[in-house]
């Protein structure tokens, strides 16, 4: 066969099944990728391998009885889920939260952001091919934060720490000194990580200009969180619609312009720094006092509906609750950050190679517990 003949050889697109059990799908996500050689033509996501019907289960539980189930949504950041749900019930029933509890909640939510971004960055680098080394360093730091969570609630993954009207128990005396030590260490750790990665040639080659998400598409596809901010959408609910006591803290909202995988990675690193700043301020300001409002075990909110949202580590997490004045929600809808952030994936991966598909997918940072619910 001559070279010219070889050039005119026709290739046919073929379908590659990717997942649900694959180390780079971060759970049980599955997609059917249509490929032309190594180039991705299209993908079709397939969901539902972790569908547990959490919204239906909510209708059969009391308002306070649903808190432990929220842990199972995005199980990487359970504290944030607790917070989002409790805020929503408090809005629906008009419950005031004591000052000290608000501060504890903010500290927990920001620690949770550190945990989430550590895992997101670590596994993202894993997907880029930096096999295991960065993720193990990240997990080492995460362990230190999990020790703190263990200290306040005895759990390392599904905390069930927040309650409607506050938190389940006050932080122990040794918590704040331990947190102080951790914050100092974390600043140093992030610097170290940055030195290793920021100008790393392989990382730059794999992520710069890869999987660009434009600002317009990000808004139109309802993308939120670090993915949206990486595309230049300066939107952070802690600033745009301050909940809890976030209006008392001084912090930056990092944004980037290009919207490629590198920008999304950079935003997460920068957000970790900002979280540490918020924790530092909260530690200085935290007052003493009760940590839980006097809320009956069975709450009967008035007839009506409420939607409260928070800036969870992955983006906007919200709970839409409808009450018919009974002890259980009439309807409980979770606004799933991870599911909605996947909307634009199809457009982001078209025309890229299979290896880039993994990197782009990893840069979105999803958790299947929240996608499927």
């Amino acid at each position, binding site marked *: 066969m001559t070279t010219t003949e070889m050039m005119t050889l026709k290739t046919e697109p073929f379908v590659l099944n990717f997942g649900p059990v694959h180390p780079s799908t971060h759970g049980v996500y599955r997609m059917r990728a249509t490929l032309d050689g190594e180039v991705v033509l299209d993908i079709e996501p397939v969901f539902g391998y972790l569908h547990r019907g959490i919204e*239906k289960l909510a209708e059969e539980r009391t308002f306070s009885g649903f808190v432990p189930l929220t842990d199972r949504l995005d199980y990487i950041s359970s504290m944030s889920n607790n917070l989002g749900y409790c805020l929503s019930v408090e809005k629906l029933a008009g419950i005031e939260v004591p000052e000290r509890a608000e501060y504890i909640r903010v500290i927990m939510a920001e620690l949770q952001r550190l945990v989430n971004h550590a895992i997101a960055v670590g596994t993202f680098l894993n997907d880029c091919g930096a096999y295991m080394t960065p993720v193990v360093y990240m997990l080492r730091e995460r362990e230190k934060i999990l020790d703190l969570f263990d200290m306040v609630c005895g759990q390392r993954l599904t905390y069930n720490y927040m309650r409607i009207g506050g938190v389940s128990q006050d932080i122990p005396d040794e918590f704040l000194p331990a947190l102080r030590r951790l914050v100092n260490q974390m600043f140093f750790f992030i610097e170290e990580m940055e030195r290793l990665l920021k100008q790393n040639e392989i990382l730059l080659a794999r992520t710069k200009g890869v999987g660009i998400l434009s600002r317009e598409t990000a808004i139109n596809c309802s993308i939120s969180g670090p993915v949206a901010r990486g595309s230049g959408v300066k939107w952070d609910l802690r600033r745009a619609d301050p909940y809890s006591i976030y209006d008392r803290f001084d912090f930056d909202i990092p944004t980037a312009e290009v919207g490629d995988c590198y920008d999304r990675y950079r935003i997460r690193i920068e957000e970790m720094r900002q979280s540490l700043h918020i924790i530092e301020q909260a530690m200085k300001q935290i007052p003493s006092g009760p940590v839980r409002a006097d809320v009956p075990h069975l709450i009967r909110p008035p007839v009506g509906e409420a939607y409260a*949202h928070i800036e969870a580590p992955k983006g906007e997490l919200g709970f*839409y609750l409808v009450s018919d004045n009974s002890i259980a929600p009439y*309807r409980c809808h979770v606004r799933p950050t991870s599911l909605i952030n996947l909307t634009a994936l199809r457009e982001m991966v078209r025309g890229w190679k299979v290896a880039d598909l993994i990197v782009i997918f990893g840069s979105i940072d999803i958790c299947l517990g929240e996608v499927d619910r």
Partner: protein
Amino acid sequence: MTVALSGKEIASQIEEKFPGSVEESGRDSLVVKSDSLLPVAAFLRDTETLKFDYLSYVTAVDYFSYFEVVYQLTSLEHNHSIVIKTRCYGRENPVVPSVIGIWQGADFQEREIYDLMGIKFEGHPNMKRIFLWEGFAGHPLRKDYLS
């Protein structure tokens, strides 16, 4: 702080443009007739003073006599929000027009509503179940679904 705009005020603006399209309006939400949902949605997105370019979420509630589809809209530029609802009557084959052409973010969420609540979205390019498998009997989030 995201300002929740008054449903009554937005309703009067919509009524001016599309008479008879608003069914009901409240403090921070309004109910639009389903046959005029698409022009109203486009109006809300494209009007300069409103500019609801971000669809926070879509969900549906079963009230037995009708289904209510809820859209929470936000304007990132003006930092305000509004809740738009539309109702569909009849349990056999409820249909609502799909807003995917206006806000693409509705893609998976409308499929989820179809899967779990059984409301079809007309105009959605891929209207099939998302979490449960094809052939699953019933729609679990309906109030009359018995597990």
